C-alpha cells in the first residue's frame, strides 16, 4: 500500500507548485463532486493562496477542454486515477464546476487564517465579545501597554520603585531617563514564540513575591564581589611586582604584553582581563612569561610563583562568571516589568474584546497539547481528510504542534497528506520558523512506515549555466561560511553542511543544448574598513550604496537592448530602504535623463512609498493645518508643496509667517472661504475635497500616490472613528507601511526583498546589495531566552542580548548556537537570492580588505569575495572567470540580440479623476418632525397635527394609526410623552362620528392608493371610500384654511367620478381645530 504521508524536499525551481497542484488534483478528482471539500491546502502567504486557487482552476479548466496524455501532469493523473482521457475531461469539468459552485468549501488558506477560523468558534468560552477583532498591529498594542504601565506607577509602589531604579540606571548609563523606549524594545518579546515557549517557567518564577528584586540584588552583589576581589588582586599583583622590583613592561611582550593586564584588573567596567586563546594555552608555564634572555627572568619566575601565575590562571573562570552576570543584568530592568506587561495585556484584551494575531497559535498549541482527538477542530465542522502544507520549513513550533493532531488523525485513517519544503530556503526564523522540523523532527514525530520521502531535484526554472553555477556555488559556500563560524572561536557542528547536502540539482534533458546557457555577473567593490554595527550604521549604508545605484540605469538599458521586458527583471534587496533607494533612483533617472526608447518603471509592494510624493505631502499639509489652524508650520508646508506642484518658485514671501506670494493670494482667499465648510465634512469627503481644492486631479499630479493615499484614508475609516486628528496620528504611525499598488501584469521591474521573493522567479535577477553582517550586532542583535537557576534555586528564564561577551560566560552554548543559525540564515538568504533567476544573475557586493592576513568572514560580502577571488570555477569551465583587476566574476554570453525592443506605448488609464460636488443633487425624503425647516418648526411648536396627518394618510383604522404611531416612536422620532399626546388627539378625532365613519371597517377604502395618471403622475387624497352607491373623498389638513383645499378635493372627486361613474362626495377635514368642510 502506498504510504500516505508524503514528505517532499524541494530545492529551488524544482516544480514544487506543480507537485502541490498535482497532488491536489489527484485527491480532488477522485470524487469530482465533493472531493475538494475534504482537502485543506495551506500556503505561506495570502498571495500564494490566491495564486494556488487560480492555478487549480486554470488546470481544471484546461483539463476539461483537452487532455494531452503526453503532458506529464495529464499522464500522472490518468495513471493515478486509472481513467481514459475522456473520463478525465469529464471529471475535470465536474470538479471545476463543483468548486465554482461550492466555492466556500474550496479551502486553500494560510495557517493563520485557518487557525483564526478555529479560534472564532471559541468566542463564548473565551468570553470574547461576539464581534471580536483580530488585532494585527502589535506595535500599537505594545505602545498602549507601556503607557498604561507607566501610568500605574502612581498606585503601585513596587512598580514605582522598580521603574525609578531603572530610570536612574539609564541615567547612569548616559541614556534617556525615559524608560518607555527600553521597555518597548524588550516588550516586543511577549508576542514571540521564543518567549512563550518558556512561559511556564517564567510564570512560576515571577509568581514568587520579590523574586526579581532579590535576583537583581543577587547579581549586583555578585558583581560587586568580583569587582572588589579583582581590585584587591590588582593591589596584590602590584605588591608582588614591586617586591620583585619589576615593571609590567619587563614581562614578555613589553608594553604590549600580557602583563599589562595585571594593573587593569578591577576596572569597574571590565574588572577581569581577557586572555586570547593562545595566551591561555601558554601562560600556565612561566617559560612564556619572559622573553628569551631577559635579565629579569628570575624575578619574573619568582613573581609567577608568588601568585601571579595562579592569579592569571583564575581569570578565565572569573571572567566567565563576570560575563554571566553582565549578560543577566543587561535586560533585567526592562524584564522586571514583563509580568506587568503580560497582566496589562490581559486586561486590555479583555476590555477591548480583541484577540492578538499572536494569541491564535498560542492558544491552539495549549489546547491541542497532548490531546489525541483534535475535537476542537470539530467545532468548526472540520471536514478535512487531506492536508497539503507548503513552505513547511517556515512553520513554527507552535503551528506544527497545533497541526499535528489533525495530521495524525487523518493519517490514522489512511488519508493522504503532503508536506513540501526546503530547509535551504528557510529564512523566516526571526518570525518563529523552525527549519529543524523539516530537517529532522517531523520524521521522528510521525511513524516511519507512513512516510514516503522524496527529493525533487530537477531544476525546471533556470538555464543550465545558472543551475550549474548555483550547484557549485552552494556546494562550496557552506564550507566558507563554516570558516566564518570558526572565526567566532567555535566549531561549526556542520549544520550548514547538513542543510545543504542535497543542494546539487539536475538539469532537465530538454534544456541541455539550448544555445543560451545563462549569464552571470558578480562584482565586488572595496569599502572602507569600518567595523559594522558602528554608530553611524545608516550613514554607512547610504555611502556604501552610491556606487551600485549609479550602475543600475546602464544595466537596465543593456538588458532592454537584449530584448528583456521590464517585467522580466527583478531587484532583490535585503531591506526595504534599499529598495526605496533603487526605486527613487530609477524614477529620478526616468524623469531627468532617460534616453528615448528606454523605460525604467518599477513596481514594488515594499518600496514605492506613498508618502514621498509632493502631491500627498501637499494634501497632508492641508489636513494637518485643518486639524489645528494655529499651526503655521503646517500651513506653510501646504503652501510650499502647492507652489512646488504649480512651479511657483519658493521664496521668502512664501515662508514668512505673515506673507504669501501674489500668485497665491487667490487660493488663500478661497481657502479662507471654504475652510469652515470643509471642516464639517466626513473624513473621506474632506480628503477628496482637499485634493480637488489643490487641483491635483486636474493637474494629473502623482495620481497613483494620491490614490494610494485615499485608499489609506478609506482603510482607516473602516476600522476607526473617522476624525481628522485620529487619522493624522494613525498616518504618522503607518505611513511607512503604505506603498503604491500597481497591477501585477503591468510591465515594470520588480523590486522586492529576498524574503518576499521566496517562491517567485524572474528571468533576470539583480541583487545590488549582497553584503550584510551575518551575526547582527548592536540594536539588531537578537534576544535569546536563557533558562537559568538563581542562587536560591529558583528556575526562571532571562532575556539576554546576543553579544560577544556571552561567548565567555555560562551562556556560551546559547551564544554559539545563535551564531551558527545566523550563518545558516545568511546562507539561506543567499541561496534564495541566487536561485530566483531563470537566465541571468547580476550580483553586487562590498568587501573589506582584512587588517591581518586572515580575511574576516563575518559579512556575506567578504565570504563571497573570499570564495570568488580564490579561484572559483564551476563545472565544465576550467578557466576561472575571475577578473582580479576588475574584481568581477563573469560568465556566459547573451545570444545575438533576440529581438528589437519594441518601446511600449504607455496607456493612459481611462479614469475619471475630477471631483464633483454632489451634495445639491441628492434629495432626501422628508418626514413630519424631521430636521428640515418645517420639521423643526413643527417640533418647536409641538405641532402634532402634521404627525396626525401623516398617520391618518396611511391608516385604515384607529388601531392602524396607533400601530404606525408606535412604529415611528420606536424609531425614536419623538419621545413617548409626545406619542401619548398624539394618541390622545387621534382618539379624540375618532370620537367624531363622521370621522369614525370614514374609517368604518365595513366600507371599502383605499389607503395610500390614489389615482394613477398616464405618464405616472399620482393623485392621492388621504382617503377614498368606495361604497356600492357612492364614493367619498376625504383630505386631511393641518394649519389654516386655504382656498385651494376644496378645489383640490374637487379635482379628486372628478377623477373618482370618471373611474366609477357613481356620485361622489368630498370633504376637507381640518385637524386643528377639528372642522369638516363638505365640498
Amino acid at each position, binding site marked *: 500500500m502506498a504510504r500516505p504521508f508524503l514528505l517532499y524536499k524541494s530545492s529551488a525551481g524544482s516544480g514544487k507548485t506543480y507537485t502541490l497542484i498535482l497532488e491536489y488534483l489527484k485527491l480532488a478528482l477522485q470524487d469530482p463532486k465533493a472531493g475538494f471539500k475534504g482537502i485543506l491546502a495551506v500556503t505561506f502567504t495570502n498571495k500564494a493562496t490566491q495564486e494556488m486557487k487560480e492555478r487549480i482552476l486554470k488546470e481544471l479548466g484546461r483539463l476539461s477542454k483537452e487532455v494531452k496524455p503526453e503532458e506529464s501532469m495529464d499522464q500522472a493523473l490518468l495513471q493515478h486515477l486509472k481513467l481514459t482521457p475522456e473520463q478525465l475531461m469529464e471529471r475535470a469539468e465536474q470538479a471545476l464546476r463543483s468548486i465554482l459552485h461550492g466555492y*466556500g468549501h474550496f479551502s486553500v488558506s494560510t495557517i493563520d487564517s485557518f487557525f483564526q477560523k478555529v479560534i472564532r468558534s471559541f468566542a*463564548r468560552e473565551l468570553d470574547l465579545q461576539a464581534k471580536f477583532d483580530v488585532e494585527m498591529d502589535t506595535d500599537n498594542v505594545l505602545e498602549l501597554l507601556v503607557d498604561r504601565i507607566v501610568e500605574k506607577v502612581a498606585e503601585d509602589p513596587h512598580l514605582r520603585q522598580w521603574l525609578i531604579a531603572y530610570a536612574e540606571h539609564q541615567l547612569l548609563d548616559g541614556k534617556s531617563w525615559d524608560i518607555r523606549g527600553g521597555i518597548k524594545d524588550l516588550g516586543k518579546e511577549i508576542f514571540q514564540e521564543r518567549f512563550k515557549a518558556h512561559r511556564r517557567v517564567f510564570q512560576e518564577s515571577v509568581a514568587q513575591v520579590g523574586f526579581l528584586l532579590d535576583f537583581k540584588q543577587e547579581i549586583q552583589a555578585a558583581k560587586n564581589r568580583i569587582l572588589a576581589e579583582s581590585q584587591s588582586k590588582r593591589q596584590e599583583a602590584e605588591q608582588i611586582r614591586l617586591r620583585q622590583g619589576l615593571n609590567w613592561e619587563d614581562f614578555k611582550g613589553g608594553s604590549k604584553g600580557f602583563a599589562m593586564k595585571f594593573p587593569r584588573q578591577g576596572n569597574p567596567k571590565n574588572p577581569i582581563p581577557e586572555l586570547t586563546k593562545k595566551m591561555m594555552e601558554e601562560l600556565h608555564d612561566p617559560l612564556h612569561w619572559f622573553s628569551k634572555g631577559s635579565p629579569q627572568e628570575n624575578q619574573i619566575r619568582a613573581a609567577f610563583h608568588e601568585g601571579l601565575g595562579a592569579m592569571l590562571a583564575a581569570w578565565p573562570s572569573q571572567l566567565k562568571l563576570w560575563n554571566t552576570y553582565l549578560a543577566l543584568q543587561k535586560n533585567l530592568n526592562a524584564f522586571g516589568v514583563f509580568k506587568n506587561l503580560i497582566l496589562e495585556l490581559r486586561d486590555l484584551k479583555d476590555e477591548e474584546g480583541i484577540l492578538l494575531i499572536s494569541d491564535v497559535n498560542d492558544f491552539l498549541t495549549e489546547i491541542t497539547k497532548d490531546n489525541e482527538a483534535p475535537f476542537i477542530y470539530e467545532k468548526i465542522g472540520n471536514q478535512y481528510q487531506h492536508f497539503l502544507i507548503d513552505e513547511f520549513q517556515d512553520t513554527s513550533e507552535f503551528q506544527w504542534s497545533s497541526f499535528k493532531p489533525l495530521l495524525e488523525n487523518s493519517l490514522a485513517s489512511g488519508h493522504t497528506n503532503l508536506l513540501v519544503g526546503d530547509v535551504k530556503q528557510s529564512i523566516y526564523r526571526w518570525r518563529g520558523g523552525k527549519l529543524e522540523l523539516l530537517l529532522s523532527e517531523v520524521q521522528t514525530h510521525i511513524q516511519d512506515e507512513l512516510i514516503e520521502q522524496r527529493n525533487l531535484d530537477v531544476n525546471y526554472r533556470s538555464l543550465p549555466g545558472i543551475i550549474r553555477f548555483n550547484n557549485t556555488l552552494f556546494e562550496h559556500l557552506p564550507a566558507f561560511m563554516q570558516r566564518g563560524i570558526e572565526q567566532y572561536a567555535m566549531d561549526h557542528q556542520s549544520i550548514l553542511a547538513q542543510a545543504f547536502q542535497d543542494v546539487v540539482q539536475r538539469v532537465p534533458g530538454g534544456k541541455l543544448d539550448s544555445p543560451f546557457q545563462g549569464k552571470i555577473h558578480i562584482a565586488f567593490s572595496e569599502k572602507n574598513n569600518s567595523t559594522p554595527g558602528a554608530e553611524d550604521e545608516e550613514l554607512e549604508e547610504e555611502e556604501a550604496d552610491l556606487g551600485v545605484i549609479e550602475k543600475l540605469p546602464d544595466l537596465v538599458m543593456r538588458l532592454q537592448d537584449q530584448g528583456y521586458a521590464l517585467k522580466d527583471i527583478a531587484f532583490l534587496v535585503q531591506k526595504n530602504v534599499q529598495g526605496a533607494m533603487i526605486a527613487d533612483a530609477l524614477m529620478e533617472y526616468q524623469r531627468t535623463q532617460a534616453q528615448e526608447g528606454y523605460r525604467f518603471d518599477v513596481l514594488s509592494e515594499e518600496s514605492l512609498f506613498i508618502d514621498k510624493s509632493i502631491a500627498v505631502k501637499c494634501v497632508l499639509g492641508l489636513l494637518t493645518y485643518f486639524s489645528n489652524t494655529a499651526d503655521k508650520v503646517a500651513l506653510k508646508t501646504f503652501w510650499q508643496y502647492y507652489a512646488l506642484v504649480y512651479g511657483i518658485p519658493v521664496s521668502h514671501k512664501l515662508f514668512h509667517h505673515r506673507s504669501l506670494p501674489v500668485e497665491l493670494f487667490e487660493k488663500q482667499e478661497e481657502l479662507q472661504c471654504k475652510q469652515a465648510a470643509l471642516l464639517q465634512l466626513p473624513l473621506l469627503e474632506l480628503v477628496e475635497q482637499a485634493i480637488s481644492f489643490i487641483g491635483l486631479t486636474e493637474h494629473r499630479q502623482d495620481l497613483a500616490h494620491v490614490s494610494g493615499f485615499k485608499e489609506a484614508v478609506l482603510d482607516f475609516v473602516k476600522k476607526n472613528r473617522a476624525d481628522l486628528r485620529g487619522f493624522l496620528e494613525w498616518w504618522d504611525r503607518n505611513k511607512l*507601511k503604505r506603498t503604491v499598488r500597481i497591477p501585477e501584469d503591468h510591465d515594470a521591474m520588480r523590486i522586492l526583498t529576498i524574503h518576499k521573493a521566496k517562491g517567485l522567479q524572474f528571468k533576470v535577477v539583480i541583487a545590488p546589495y549582497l553584503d550584510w553582517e551575518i551575526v547582527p550586532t548592536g540594536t539588531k542583535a537578537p534576544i535569546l531566552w536563557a533558562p537559568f537557576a538563581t542562587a536560591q534555586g529558583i528556575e526562571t528564564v532571562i532575556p539576554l542580548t546576543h553579544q560577544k561577551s556571552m561567548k565567555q560566560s555560562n551562556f556560551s552554548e546559547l551564544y554559539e548556537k545563535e551564531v551558527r543559525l545566523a550563518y545558516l540564515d545568511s546562507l539561506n538568504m543567499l541561496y534564495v537570492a541566487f536561485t530566483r533567476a531563470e537566465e541571468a544573475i547580476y550580483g553586487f557586493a562590498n568587501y573589506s580588505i582584512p587588517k591581518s592576513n586572515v580575511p574576516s568572514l563575518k559579512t556575506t560580502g567578504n565570504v563571497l569575495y573570499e570564495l570568488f577571488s580564490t579561484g572559483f570555477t564551476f563545472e565544465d569551465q576550467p578557466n576561472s572567470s575571475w577578473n582580479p583587476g576588475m574584481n568581477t566574476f563573469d560568465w556566459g554570453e547573451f545570444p545575438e540580440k533576440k529581438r528589437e525592443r519594441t518601446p511600449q506605448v504607455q496607456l493612459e488609464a481611462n479614469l*475619471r479623476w475630477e471631483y464633483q460636488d454632489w451634495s445639491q443633487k441628492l434629495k*432626501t425624503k422628508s418626514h413630519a418632525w424631521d430636521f428640515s425647516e418645517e420639521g423643526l418648526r413643527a417640533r418647536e411648536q409641538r405641532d402634532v397635527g402634521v404627525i396626525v396627518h401623516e398617520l391618518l394618510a396611511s391608516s385604515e383604522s384607529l388601531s392602524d394609526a396607533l400601530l404606525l404611531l408606535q412604529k415611528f416612536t420606536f424609531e425614536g422620532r419623538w419621545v413617548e410623552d409626545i406619542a401619548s399626546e398624539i394618541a390622545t388627539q387621534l382618539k379624540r378625532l375618532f370620537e367624531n362620528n363622521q370621522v369614525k365613519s370614514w374609517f368604518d371597517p365595513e366600507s371599502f377604502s383605499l389607503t395610500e392608493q390614489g389615482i394613477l395618471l398616464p405618464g405616472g403622475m399620482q393623485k392621492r387624497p388621504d382617503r377614498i371610500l368606495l361604497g356600492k352607491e357612492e364614493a367619498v373623498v376625504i383630505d386631511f389638513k393641518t394649519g389654516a384654511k386655504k382656498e385651494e383645499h376644496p378645489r383640490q378635493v374637487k379635482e379628486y372627486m372628478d377623477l373618482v367620478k370618471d373611474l366609477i361613474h357613481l356620485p361622489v362626495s368630498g370633504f376637507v377635514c381640518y385637524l386643528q381645530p377639528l372642522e369638516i368642510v363638505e365640498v
Partner: protein
Amino acid sequence: MIPFLKETAKSLLDSGRELNRLRVVLPNRRAGLFFTKYMGELIEQPVWMPEVITIEQLVYELAGKTPTDDLTLIFELYEQYCQIQKEPESFDRFYHWGELILKDFNDLDQFLAPVAQVYTHLAEIKSLETDLSYLSDEQRSLIAQFWKAFERQNEREQERFLRFWQVLGKLYEGFQARLHTGGFSYSGQLYRQVAQQAQELPVPEKEVLFIGFNAFTQAEEKIISHFIQSFGAQLIWDVDAYYLEDSMQEAGLFFRQYRKDKIFGKTFPSPIPNQIRNKSGKVHIHAIPLKTNQANLVGQLLEEQSVGEALEETVIILPDEHLLFPVLDHLPERITDLNVTMGYPMRNAPMYAFLDALLELQKHAKVKDEKIFFYHKTVLDLLAYAYLNEEDPLGNAEVIEKIKTNNLIEVPQEAVAKESGLFALVFQKIPSQGILDYLASIITFLAKEFPQNDTQKNYLFQAFKQLNRMKEIFHSQNANLTLDFQLNLFRKLFRELKLPFEGEPLRGLQIMGVLESRNLDFKRVIFCDVNEGSFPPAAGMNSMIPMNLRKAFGLPVQEQNDAIYAYTFYRLLHRAEEVHLIYSTAGEQGKATEMSRYLHQLRVELQVNEANSVWIPVQMTPPSAFSIEKTEAVMDKLTQYLVKEGEEVKTFSASALNMYLDCRLRFYFRYVAQLKEKEEVVTYIDPMTFGTLLHRGMEHLYAIPEGRTYRDLDKKDIEQLIPQVQAAVTLALREFYKVEEGEELRLSGQLVIASEVLAKYLEAILTYDKNQGKFRVIGLEEECKAKVSIQTAKGIKEVALGGVIDRMDIKEGVVRLLDYKTGKDTKVVGSISSLFDREDKKRNKAAMQTFLYAFFYHYMHPENQLPIKPGIFNIKEIYAEDFNLFLQMDKTEILDYRDHAAEFEEGLRKLIEEILNPDLVFDQTLDKKKCTYCAYKEICGR
C-alpha cells in the same frame, strides 16, 4: 429593455382586473414604487392605483402588530435574562450576545422550528464541549495567565457558562411572555403567529399577487401557500433558465425546490425565460488595483455613456457602503439627478466623532471646590470641530492659546463656557442621568442654528432618533446608569448604526446596495467590488446555534445564504444590456484580494472575456532641495539684529547660533520667517520640560535673597538644602502646571518617575557642590547681553547677542559660568574652531553655549580680573565618581575663558558675518540626521 416589473404591470393591465381591488405584494418598498411608476407609463387614462405593499407589511397587518425596535427588544431580553441567570453580566457586555440571541429567536420562529428542542440539543452539545477536562489543571492555569477570560473558567464559572446555554430555551419562553405583557413583539414572532393561524385568516377583500420573490422562510412559505390555495392568490417569479436548469448553480437553489412543490410548482412560467445564456458579449470585467480607484472607473464609464440616455436606466451597485462617497465624488458633471438607496455608517460622520468627544468631555470633567474643570485634551478636541469653531472663531483661538500657553491641564469652566449659544450648552457638567438629554439638546441646537446641507441634517436627525430611543429605554428601565456604561453603549450602538439615504427613488442615476436592487432592472449595470468577501460577503453565519444543529432543524445555513446572494447577482443580468463588473486586485495593505466566484463562473460557464486590467500612471514627483536667498526682505529681517543708535531690536541667542550651525534653513524658518514651532499642552515630560523643571528647581534652592546681589553657600548650607530638594521639585512642577496653592498636584505616572529622577539629579548637583566646598552665587537665570562688531558691506556694524545664564558663581577666585544639561551633552571640546564647524559631527553645542556665556560675562564685566571658567552639569556624567564640571580640550580642563577669548570671538564674528552676508543662501543641511527632530522637516520633505 423592458424591466420585469413593467412587464408584470403590463400583464396586469392587460388582464383587465379591477385595479383598486388588487393587492400587490413585493419584497421591498422600492420595488413597489417602480411598479407603480411603470404602470403609470403604460396607461392612457387615469386608473386606480393598485395597493402595493411589502410582505412584511402584509404579515404585520395580519398579525395586527408591528415589531418593536431592536434596542428595546434587547433590553427586554436582558431583563428577562437577569431573571433567570444568576450573576448576569452587565448589559453592555451582554449587548452583542443579546443581538445574536435575538437573531436566533427570529430565525427559529421564521422557520417554525421547535425551539425547546433545539435549545435542549444545544445545551447538551455545549456541556460536552465545555467539559474542559481535556485540559490539565496546569494547562488551564497557564492559559489563564495570558487570558483573563480563561480565569473565569474555574468550576463555578464553568457552571455559569454552561448555564448560559441551558437557559436559552427558558429565556425564549420567558421572553415571549414578557413581550406579550409589555405589548412588544419581534418580527419572527409575528411571522410564526400568522403562519400558525393561517387557517383562521379571513378571506381578504382584495386579490393578492406575490411578485418577484426568491427565498421564503418557512413561515412565509406557509402563509403564501395558504393564500394561493385558499384565496387564489397569484405568484409571479422572476427567473432564468440558466441557473434554474443547472442543478449546480446556487442561484437556482430555491426555485428548483419550489418547482417541485405541489402548490408553488404550478406557478412557474412556461417556458422559463432564457436571457442570461447569451449575455456574454455584454458583460465586461474590469480589474483595478485599489478599491477607491473603482470610483474613478465608475466615473469614466458614466462619462462614456451617450448624452441622450436616461439616467435612471443606469444603476451602480455598491456592496461596500464605504465606496459610496468616493463614487459620488467622481460622477460626471452632467449627472444632475441621483438617487442613493443605501445605508452609510454613522461612525464615519463627523457628527458621531463630535458626540463621542462630548461624552469624553463629560467623562473627564471634575468638580473641585464647587468649580468645574474640564480635561484639556477633551476641550481641545472639541474646539477643533467645525461646530464650535464656527460659532466664535476668534474666541476659540483665544481659548486654545490660553490653554496652551498656560499649560492648563485642567481647564476651568469659566475659561471656555459662554453666556449662551453652543459654548454654553457644551461646557457644562452634566450628571450621568442627564447625559442623553444633554446630547439631544446639542443636536437639536445644531439642527436649528447651524447652517448645513441636507445630508448633514439627515445625520443629525438619525443620531437624534437613536438617542431618543436610548433615552426612552433607560428611562423606562428606571436605570441609574453610570456614565461609562452609557458611553460604552453609545459607542456600541452608534458604531453599528447606518444612516439611511432615502432619495427621490424614481429619478436620476441609481446608486444602491446589493439587496436594494431586488426586482429592479436596468439597462446598464455597474457592479463595484466584485471581490470574494465583499460580494458575496465573507461567509459566517452569526448564530449561537452550531451549523449541524441549524441544518437538522431546517434553519438556513451558509448554503442558503450563498444561494440568495447568487440570485441577486444573476438577476441583475437578466435584462441588462451592458454590464460592468469591477473588482480590485490589491486590498488593504499587505492583503491580496480575490476576485469573486461569480467572475470565475461567468468566465467558465458563460465564456465572458478575461478582465480588462486598468492601471494607474505611476509618475511621481519627490520634493526637491531648495534654499532661500537673502533678498531685500530677508536682509531687512536680518538687519534687525544690528544695533541701531545703541539700541538693539533683536539679539542672537545661543540656540539661534547653534541652530544656524546645524542647519541654515532651519535658522531661517525659526528666526527669519518666524514660523513658530507648534505648542502643545504637555502632560508627559518631554526633554524641554524636563530641562525647564530642572532649572526652576535649582533656582528655588539657590535663590539669592531679595535685595542681595549674592549668596554664599558652604557645606553646611547645602546639607540643609538637600532635604528641601523634593519640595523644590514639587514647587517647580506646581508653577509649571499652574497648580494653585491649596490645590492638589496630581502627577501622571511618567511625571512621578520624572520628578524622582529630577530630585536625584538635583541632589547629585548639590552633593557635588557640597563636596567642593563653599562658593558664592552671584547670579541665577540671569539675562545677559553683549555686542560684537562685524564687517558688513555697509561698513562695521554692531550686532547684539543675549541669553540667560543658568548659574554664575565665584569659587576660590574663579568665576564659574554653569549650565545644567539634561541631554546627552558632553564636555569634550575638540578645539575652539570646532565649535563653529558645522561639518564636525561631534560639534559640542553645550560648550558653544557656555562659551558664549563666558563671552557675555567677559563683555559685561570688563573690570573683572578673575579667571572665567565655563562648566556644565550634565546629567550623563554627574553620577560618575570622578565628575568634573569643566570643559575639556585636548584632555585638559579649560582653565580660563580669557585664554581663548580672542579665538572664540573671532569665530563668533565670522559666524555672524556669514549669517548677515547677503550672498550666502539659507540652505538645507546635508546631514539628514539633523532633520530627525526638526519642526520643519515636513516642509523639507526630510
